[in-house]
Structures are given as C-alpha cells and as structure tokens.
C-alpha cells in the first residue's frame, strides 16, 4: 500500500471564496499571540517571571490555523507552543502571564504554573509536563463524545520530539482501532530541545506514521495558516462524521530556544536565516493585504491594539496577588 501521507492537501479554496470574518479573526489572534509572547519574552528578561518562558514564535499559523477549525464545544488538548489556540478559545492573556508568575489569578491559582494552564470551561485540557501525555487524554475526551452520541471532536497537539514516546503510539493505536473523533496535530519545529529531528526520527515525514495506523496523514507548510487550517478542517470533518482520527503535520522552525533561557546555539545559522524569511504572521498578513481582506490601516490598528492588550495584561498580572498557602492541602482529593 502506498503511503497515504502527502505534502499538500486537496485543492484549497480561493481566498475570495473564504469567510472574510474568519480570515480576519485568525489574523487578529495570530497578531495577539505574537504581541503577548513578545511581551512575555521581555518579561522573562526583565525578571517578571518565575522560571523560563516557553514561546510559540513561528507556531502561530499551526496553533491558530488548527484551533480555528473547531466549534467552541469541541475539545482541545494543546501544548506549550499553543498560546494561539488558547487565545482563540478565549483564554485571557493576563491569565497566562499570571501562570508564569505563580499568581493566585492563574488558571491553577499558582498550584501549577508556567506553561501548565488550561480551562475546562473553555474545553481546554491542562496538560502535565510529560508531553504527549495529552494524547491519551485526548482519546478519552473523544471517547466520551462518541459514547454519548455527540458530534464533538478532540484536537490534540504535540511536537516532533513527542512522536518518539510510547503514549503517542498508544494513543494513535487506540484512537484508530476505536475510531475516535480525534485530530492529532504534530508541530514539527525540527528540534526536541537541543536534538535535531534527524536524530529523533527515521521517518521521511512525521505524518507518514499515519500509514501504520491506517489513517490519513498529511504534511503541510506550518508557516502557512490557511494550509494548516484547510488540512485540519478536513481532518475535523472526517472525525465529526465518525470516520476516525487523522494526523496533520505542520513544518515550522523553533525560532527561539526550547525556552528563553536556552540560546539554542546548536541550531545552524542558515536554518534561522531561512525561516526568518518565513514569519507566519507576516506571511499571512501579506496574503490578506494582497487579497484586500485587510488594508494598511487595519494592520496598524490590530498591531497597536494587541500591543496595548499585552501591556495591560502585564500590568494586571503583575498587580495580582500571590496565592495564600494556608489552604494548600485542600483539593488533593475531590469531595
């Protein structure tokens, strides 16, 4: 059997045939993601944060492109490169900053912190450090939807490094055998911390792994928001129709270190130079400008508004209180 993995999704609709409001919303959330993360990089450098900052620079097209295919009642199991998916769902930027500061107002009230945030009221799973531990959990949320006869799907993200772990394989095996409404998005940023992809996978592509599970797998340009959106939308439709899971791989580049403490000097300069020309936010902005979906004034306005949101978010989260340790033993067990 020939691999069903392929480089390009089915013929993409013309930009003029797409919903301009959706296009605009994807743009706004991508720009907001960049603005908040730029601000948080500065906060890391300025000493505002507890530990390091794990950014999603150059992941915006994958994160927002994928999340924008979902309904609000669909489940989402993101990772630490997916601020964009969180913001798409309605996570507040100040909550994320509060998480990185251990504040009482963070989604976990400071009990967990940094990149471990989520909100069940937004149908977002809050993951532990052991990525892709969120993959088996995502099969469970999809299982529950199917169990109840609902047409909700669960979309989970992981990185290239995650595909080596047993829980990746076990989740894909279970989801494909049980035909669960899952979509698995692999954010291939070419590095697992310091280890390059060629040392972590012998597969031609990461989506080629789909062949082993008998499910569709596709690799797209992860700096192209619409390419990601279209590929994931196809996978979501398939899952919603009851036809089981798919893998979508988006190739991008991790333009910062594993986190901000990491200078990532193990990455070849040429790779940075190549991807510096492929900023997903700029690329998408240009697509929309060229198609007349937005104009220069919109760009200025959105960039300025998101910058102000990031500034206000920092002010609020800095002023927020630290948690009270007196109740630390509460909630180890649910009532």
């Amino acid at each position, binding site marked *: 059997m020939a691999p069903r993995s392929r480089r390009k999704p089915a013929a993409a609709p013309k930009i003029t045939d797409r919903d301009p409001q959706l296009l605009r919303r994807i743009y706004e959330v991508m720009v907001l993601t960049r603005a908040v993360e730029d601000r948080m990089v500065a906060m890391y450098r300025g000493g505002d944060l507890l530990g390091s900052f794990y950014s999603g620079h150059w992941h915006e097209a994958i994160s927002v492109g994928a999340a924008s295919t979902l309904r609000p009642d669909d489940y989402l199991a993101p990772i630490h490169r997916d601020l964009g998916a969180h913001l798409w769902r309605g996570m507040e930027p100040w909550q994320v900053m509060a998480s990185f500061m251990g504040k009482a107002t963070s989604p976990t009230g400071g009990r967990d912190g940094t990149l471990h945030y989520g909100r069940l009221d937004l149908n977002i799973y809050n993951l532990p450090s052991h990525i892709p531990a969120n993959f088996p959990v995502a099969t469970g949320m999809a299982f529950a939807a199917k169990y109840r006869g609902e047409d909700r799907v669960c979309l989970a993200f992981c990185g290239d490094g995650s595909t080596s772990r047993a829980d990746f394989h076990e989740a894909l095996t*279970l989801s494909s055998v049980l035909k669960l409404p899952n979509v698995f998005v692999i954010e291939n940023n070419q590095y697992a911390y310091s280890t390059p992809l060629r040392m972590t996978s012998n597969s031609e592509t990461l989506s080629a792994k789909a062949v082993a599970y008998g499910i569709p797998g596709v690799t797209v340009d992860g700096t192209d928001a619409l390419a990601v959106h279209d590929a994931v939308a196809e996978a979501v439709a398939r899952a919603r129709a009851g036809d089981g899971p798919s893998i979508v791989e988006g190739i991008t580049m991790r333009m910062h270190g594993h986190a901000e403490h990491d200078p990532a000097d193990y990455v070849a300069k040429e790779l940075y130079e190549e991807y510096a020309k492929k900023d997903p936010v700029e690329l998408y902005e240009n697509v929309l400008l060229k198609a007349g979906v937005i104009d220069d004034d919109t760009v200025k306005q959105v960039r300025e508004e998101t910058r102000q949101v990031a500034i206000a978010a920092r002010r609020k989260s800095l002023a927020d209180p630290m948690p009270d340790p007196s109740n630390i033993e509460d909630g180890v067990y649910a009532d």
Partner: protein
Amino acid sequence: MPTKNDNPTYLDAVSAALDAEMERDPDVFLIGEDVGQFGGAFKVTKGFLDKFGPRRVVDTPIAETGFTGLAAGAALVGLRPVVEFQFADFISCAFDPIINVLARHHWRTGDAMPVTMRAPFGARLRAGPTHSQSVESYFAHVPGLKIVMPGTPEDAAGLLISAIRDNNPTLYLENKYLYRRLRAAGPLSLDPIPLGQAKVVREGRDVTLVTYSAGVSQGVEVAEELDKDGISVEVVDVRTLVPLDVETIANSVRKTSRAVVLHEAAKRLGYGAEIAATIQEECFWHLDQPVVRIAAKNTPTPTSPPLEDAVIPQPAEIAETLRKVARA
C-alpha cells in the same frame, strides 16, 4: 440488596458490584485488555459484553498508558471509567498517566478525574517475579490517589461500589489468590461501604494485628489457633490504605498495647512502615513493645513453591511473631 448466590466468592463479589454499578449508572464503562469477548483473564467480567454491549465493555490493544490516559480524559468530561489491569504487575506501564495525569489533576485544576483502576495482585499462585507483585506502596506515596484493598468478599463488593462512586482516581487491588478460595458467609449486600473506615474483624486483648487484603483471613486463622494457647489477638483490617483510618487502628493498639503489622508486600518501605510509624506517633505511651512488621523478604517473588514460600509470610511466622510480641 442481597444477590442470588448464597455463598459468593471474592471474585463473584467483584463481578456483582461491577454489574450493579453498570446497571445503576449509564456513565460507568469498563475498559481493558480482554475484558469483553474473553470476559477478562480471571473471568471477572464474564457475560458483561453480552449484557452491556461493546459501547460499555471496551476491549483494548495492549496499551496500558494509552487506555489509562483515555480513562482520565473520559472521566474529566463526566464519564466513570473502570479500568482493568490484567495483572497489577502491568500497572507500571501506566505509571505516567496515573502519577502525572490522574493523581494531581484535581489539586492542580479543581476538575475531578473519577477513574477506578482494578488490578489483580499478589503472590502464592507460583506466578513468579513479574506476575505476583504487590504494588500498593508505589502508589501510596503519591498524593491524590485512593487505595482500596479488600480482604473479604463482603468488602470486595461494598468497597468497589464506593470506589466507582468516588470522585477521585482510585486503585482497587484484588488479591487474585483469594478470587476462588474465599467465600462470603451468606448472600452479599451491594450497599456501599465507605472508603477510609478500618474494621475490627476479630476482637482480642493481648496484641493487635493490623493488616489488609489476604492478611485478613490469614491473620484470623492464626488468631484462632493462638486462642487455644490463651493468646487473644485483635485483628484490624485497614481495608483502605488511602485514606487510612488512623483512629480505629490507634484505638485498638491503645487497648492491647502491642501491635504487629502484616502484609504480603516486601518489607522495605512497604505500607507496614507507614502503619508502624503512625502507631508510634499516635500510641507511643501506650505501647509495651516495639511495633513489629511481618512482610515479604526484600527480594522479587520467586516462582518455585519452596522458594516463594520462603519469601512470603507463612502462618508459622505470623503465629510465632504474635506469640512473641504478646508474651514479651
């Protein structure tokens, strides 16, 4: 609600409790290896697939990490999964989702993950180093898990019902040696027995034997023998290791002033260490003797009968220890 069977086994009790909870709550489902078509490796779920269908009785690939994580996700959004590990020895394959996902999710987020994890464990079936393990101590150290270890058919039923209704990830360890060897005194009640309540299963004056699971029937048998020599042993079945009913244990030890702890798990950092330390903290001034632990040797569990018998606590050792502590 008594069941039809007059003297159900420990295994019948587990089955009956599962069946009753599945009938009562449509959100309860079973998931694990060979639980459906095959009825489970020990036949605990025999007939369940026919009765409840493949939607609620889910056979899985050999993927303990996968299906434990699946259960966590399903529980997070409102279902009540009952996971079966074919042997407790295989639960190590699911250590990651149990420790890092299930145990701490509620504390981290305030959202519950009510998963019941059933696992047949224990020695004396000559099953060797990777089919005979007692795994309770691996998990008792981790905040956020409850651990239930019934020693009688009556408790097996009532505690499993409570475990399934509990809103926390709960490890329910079935002693596979007892499955077909222990029978209830009469028809089973399927009323829940609260977690966190120890039980004085035999009253006595001279020494308290604190134990759980197979240690309960074993301990009572030895106590009856010692009675003939005028040694009166009180046997306390802790029933749930987490939460631990310190009060019932302490009340008994304050009465007898002597305590022996018994379990089948290896001695070093076995749960007996926790019980002994707790007794020392709670009852130091009441004790006539140091608390003594009876446990397996600090080796893996061997296969061959003379070897396994040399490692696992035997009635003679239990009797001798109790006699010594009671008379010292």
